[in-house]
């Protein structure tokens, strides 16, 4: 098995996949803690569907760089979702359900009508579930991902104390002069960016898993915020590594394997948490 791993490691595309996978897992878990605790998980879910629709539009337009379409559309959707979520007059959850299912349908329809590819269902499947696209990353995409991840991690560290305050108690934060709205906006935008990046790794349907599972697993056993953040980052990175390695060794789909690893860790942590609390 070690032999096989060493053999695969000699290929650059495998190394790229591992680097990108680990970085995306790290970023999504950092953000996940805040999203889960702020009851914003739905934003991640809605956005991943929007990103799918945007990707379909980009494919139909046959653009060389699909990111230029997908990124702005997803960021705008993130801002809109945040607004509706805070607005009590519109039913936030219904609006999000509409938006996500709508983008899925429109995206699939567009692909069906205009795609030049011979294997449409294959294309759709890989966009939804990630399949092999992580193994076909170009050097440029890898650098884009590294740069974005460094930026996200740096922002998170610098704003850590403020993010904690806004997450724990928005009213108090506002009353003491913190611009809670601006931080919510920032969180939504970073979420959008990470989701677009993570689409390469696990596909748009499975991204939410990457965002919520590590945070939920960590919250089963750890009782303070800093601990939860660290532990969920560790869980997420380990699951991504194990998932990618298993996927390569047994030729399973990368995204699904990573998510299954996360589910296993969640179950273990739930058990441990139950024992600890006794």
């Amino acid at each position: 098995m070690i032999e096989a791993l060493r053999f695969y490691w000699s290929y650059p595309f495998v190394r790229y996949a591992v680097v990108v996978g680990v970085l995306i897992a790290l970023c999504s878990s950092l953000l996940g803690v805040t999203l889960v605790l702020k009851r914003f998980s739905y934003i991640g879910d809605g956005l991943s569907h929007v990103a799918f629709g945007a990707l379909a539009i980009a494919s139909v337009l046959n653009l060389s760089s699909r990111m230029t379409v997908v990124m702005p559309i997803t960021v705008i959707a993130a801002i809109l979702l945040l607004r509706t979520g805070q607005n009590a007059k519109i039913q936030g959850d219904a609006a999000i359900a509409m938006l996500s299912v709508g983008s899925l349908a429109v995206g699939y329809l567009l692909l069906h009508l205009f795609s030049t590819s011979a294997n449409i269902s294959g294309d759709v499947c890989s966009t939804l579930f990630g399949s092999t696209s992580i193994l076909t990353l170009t050097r440029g995409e890898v650098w884009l991902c590294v740069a974005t991840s460094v930026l996200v991690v740096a922002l998170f560290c610098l704003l850590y104390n403020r993010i904690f305050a806004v997450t724990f108690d928005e009213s108090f934060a506002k009353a003491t002069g913190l611009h809670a709205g601006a931080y919510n906006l920032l969180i939504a935008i970073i979420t959008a960016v990470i989701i677009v990046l993570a689409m390469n790794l696990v596909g748009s349907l499975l991204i939410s898993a990457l965002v919520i599972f590590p945070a939920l697993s960590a919250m089963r056993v750890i009782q303070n915020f800093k601990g939860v953040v660290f532990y969920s980052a560790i869980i997420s990175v380990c699951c991504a590594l194990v998932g990618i390695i298993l996927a390569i060794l047994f030729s399973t789909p990368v995204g699904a394997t990573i998510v299954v690893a996360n589910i296993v860790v969640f179950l273990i942590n739930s058990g441990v948490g139950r024992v600890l609390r006794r």
Partner: protein
Amino acid sequence: MAYITCRDLVLGYDGMAVAENIGFQVNEGEYWYIVGENGAGKSTLMKTLLGLTPLMGGSITFGDGLERYEVGYLPQQTFVQRDFPASVWEIVLSGTLSSIGKRPFFNKEQKLLAEKNMRRMDIWDLRKQCYRMLSGGQQQRVLLARALCASSKLLVLDEPVTGLDPKVTMEFYQLIRDLNKEGLTIIMVSHDIQAAVSYASHILHVERERSFTGTTAEYRRSDFWRALGGDGV
């Protein structure tokens, strides 16, 4: 000049006015109770004071050395906080955030302030505990310590005794009175009128059409108090 001067306030949300013509002045060391029925606008008044809800009319001026955001706020507990994984230390320390300016992290000064207020609230031994595991009374002390970190001048409390049992409620009222005697100015939103007349120095009674502003002694003589079946002086 007073800490807070409110003139001709119009209170409301989503463009609907709930109460009008409210004016009062809070001076250093006073203990204010804002009372009134549900929906009369007392919570809205407090949120407007704190800048959480935009002002619909009138003016609020801060003075006498009190800055706009130099307020220790004790909110009603939200359901998010009930299962939030945060230690007591993390929560209290977050109260000092307004004093770190543009810096990203806390320094010695903030940590000492947090420690001082935790000892003052008698929760220093709980600092490593998870907030959601504490009793209702302990949780209120944690939030109070956090509020004290945010301001050493003014505390604003929103229905702080909701959900506390009678004994803990009494202890909490004593605690607030002691803080007031140490010089803190208190504004408490409550519908506990009995507590209001026994602890407050001033009372603001908000009703839809009219409102009362004045000292507690004046309030006891007013028809607001009598309308509630209160005994005269």
